[in-house]
């Protein structure tokens, strides 16, 4: 072949290849269209057909396998194979004495009876050992009598694991928490009202041996409560109470709060407030607590005022977070209107209003305001304007409250 004809052939082939590629690309475009259509159809079919046609492999062996080491049982299967008679080994099958093998199997069955029963229940995932359960129960009862409740609970729990069908164990286990929980709760309460706690608990413990004595226990606590009031000299001003509240250890902003309530107490002294026997609740940790406290103090507006007063406006965002309930909001406005106008500086009212308006669901709360409540806010703003607080920020705030 001459070089010239070779070159011609080469050119021809190259052309051919290029055409082939072009064809492929063209073909690809039409395939793209078809396959996308198919894809869409498939995606719109939600039904999963035949999902559960086939069993999960080794499901029945799973539990047994767990107990064994997880090494693949290559060797054991090989051993089994050695003992087994091949299906085509007719001679060996002929010699096989079926009766003796059956007898042997029967013997094995009777000797391993207890074992097989155990393994059967194991397959169900539940293992019963009533002996152990009884022993644990006895041990638990002993601890219970000695007052070692935690140990007793441990024993009952172990017993329940050993025999989940025994009804005594869970009952026994439950009886302890009821008793101790009540005592612990009461202990907390006693701490709050500042009584020698140990004394009370010992009294309670002797009184409520069984859970039915709960009512008795609560009776005792109410008695203690009233005696607490008796202890306080009637001439004592609310100052004593306020300072007591300060002592509650679990208020996180204790420093801020202390200075604030100090100022409070001095002011309270000046404005002789009628003495009310209910204890002023501590600063709430969240809006739910605030709500329930509001409900408790509903009948004593003075207390409501004092309660609100002890909450620093800067704590509002933390307190309310995302849940400024319209009810709470309106109640606060009412307190501001009824007490703050008379007793507090307008700047404090302004601050509270400002803080409230910064809360997350403020706009919604405003939307839920009734006519009378709108009047209340109007009055508040009028008061502030009268007392000389009038600039753009107040105007803006007013707009937000009336929108």
């Amino acid at each position, binding site marked *: 072949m001459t070089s010239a004809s070779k070159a011609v052939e080469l050119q021809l082939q190259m052309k051919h290849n290029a055409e082939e590629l072009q064809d492929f690309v063209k073909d*690809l475009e039409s395939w793209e269209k078809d396959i996308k259509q198919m*894809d869409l159809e498939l995606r719109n079919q939600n039904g999963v057909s035949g999902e559960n046609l086939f069993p999960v492999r080794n499901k029945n062996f799973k539990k047994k396998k767990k107990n064994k080491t997880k090494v693949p049982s290559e060797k054991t299967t090989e051993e089994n194979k050695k003992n087994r008679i091949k299906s085509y080994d007719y001679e060996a099958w002929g010699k096989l004495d079926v009766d003796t093998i059956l007898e042997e199997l029967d013997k094995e069955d009777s000797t391993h009876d207890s074992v097989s029963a155990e393994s059967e229940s194991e397959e169900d995932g539940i293992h019963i050992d009533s002996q152990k359960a009884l022993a644990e129960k006895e041990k638990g009862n002993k601890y219970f009598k000695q007052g070692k409740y935690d140990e007793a609970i441990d024993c009952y729990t172990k017993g329940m694991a050993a025999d989940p069908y025994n009804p005594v164990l869970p009952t026994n286990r439950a009886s302890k928490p009821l008793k101790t929980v009540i005592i612990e709760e009461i202990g907390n309460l006693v701490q709050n009202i500042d009584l020698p706690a140990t004394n009370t608990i010992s009294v309670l413990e002797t009184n409520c041996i069984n859970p039915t004595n709960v009512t008795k226990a609560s009776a005792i606590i109410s008695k203690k409560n009233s005696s607490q009031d008796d202890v306080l000299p009637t001439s004592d001003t609310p100052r004593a109470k306020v300072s007591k509240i300060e002592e509650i250890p679990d208020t996180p902003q204790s420093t801020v709060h202390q200075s604030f309530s100090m100022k409070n107490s001095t002011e309270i002294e000046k404005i002789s407030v009628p003495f009310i026997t209910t204890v002023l609740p501590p600063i709430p940790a969240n809006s739910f607590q605030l709500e329930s406290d509001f409900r408790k103090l509903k009948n004593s507006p003075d207390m409501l005022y004092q309660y609100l007063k002890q909450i620093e406006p800067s704590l509002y965002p933390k307190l309310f977070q995302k849940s400024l309930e319209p009810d709470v909001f309106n109640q606060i406005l009412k307190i501001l209107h009824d007490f703050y106008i008379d007793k507090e500086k307008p700047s404090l009212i302004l601050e509270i209003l400002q803080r409230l308006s910064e809360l997350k669901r403020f706009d919604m709360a405003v939307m839920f305001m009734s006519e009378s409540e709108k009047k209340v806010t109007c009055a508040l703003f009028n008061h502030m304007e009268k007392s000389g607080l009038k600039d753009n920020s107040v105007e803006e705030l007013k707009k937000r409250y009336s929108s």
Partner: protein
Amino acid sequence: MNAFEKPQIIAHIQKSLNYTVFDCKWVPCSAKFVTLGNYARGTGVIQLYEIQHGDATLLREIEKAKPFKCGTFGAASLQQRYLATGDFDGNLSIWNLEAPLMPVYSVKGHKEIINTIDGVGGLGIGEGAPEIVTGSRDGTVKVWDPRQKDTPVANMEPVQGESKRDCWTVAFGNAYNQEERVVCAGYDNGDVKLFDLKKMSLRWETNIKNGVCSVEFDRKDINMNKLIATSLEGKFHVFDMRTQHPTKGFASVSEKAHKSTVWQVRHLPQNREIFMTAGGAGGLHLWKYEYPVQRSKKDSEGVEMGVAGSVSLLQNVTLSTQPISSLDWSPDKRGLCVCSAFDQTVRVLIVTKLNKV
């Protein structure tokens, strides 16, 4: 064959990525493919691309805490097409690519990285239950059923006392009826092991002297026919899996394919005599296997043994200077293929004239 009558391998679309890509897979019954990898910041990424008129458009990107090493659609139904992935932390997760916020199934399957994953029983390929097999650096190969939580349905690990080998590759095969199924696993020391899932035993093992990078059966859903194992030093071995000799095992032919590691081998789904190997130097080689005249013969004792065929190179091309880490043929379009390389590029390739060889 004249040089111009050979199939051509052409890079149709190239896409540069901003992460290291380890695996790429076609989404069955679609013009889409997924890429899996890890960002430099240490997170894992799945990207979904669709071919649109000669370009690959990014449809979705999913970023997760751990880098993804491998993925498969093999155990998912055609309707759902959930992607099963293995990550650097040993987690096997199954993702609904339409709603990827939380995995559909997730299990901490291995103590170390999952190197490799394969699925069967979904997509209408393979009889029997949908199952996923994972191979890990911790030396174990575990088979999972997406319907069973937390525990594998089969666990293949070295006998206590034996040293643990890094499992680099796994593949399902022989799933021609509801019971039969095998898993082939390749290890870093050159071991190739064939586990029979029906008998729960090791059926066969051999050593190809060098780390096994990739194994694949020509088809998963037939009585096992051919198995290819590629190795670290550039060779691949084709085993005829039809006839197992009691002592000699399966007959094989080996071929030195690349000068460097053969990272992956994939059979053309439309014609399983043809397969592509991906090399450590960025090259792709297209091969054809020819069966011998007789596939089995009797040895001196009259026991059947297999006879290996021969392989011939159809075409080769160098796409990159970096290793090609993964390769996947489109199951729906003959000659369409996607491959990812460590130069952070994913390429859609066209191989022509495949119907003529």
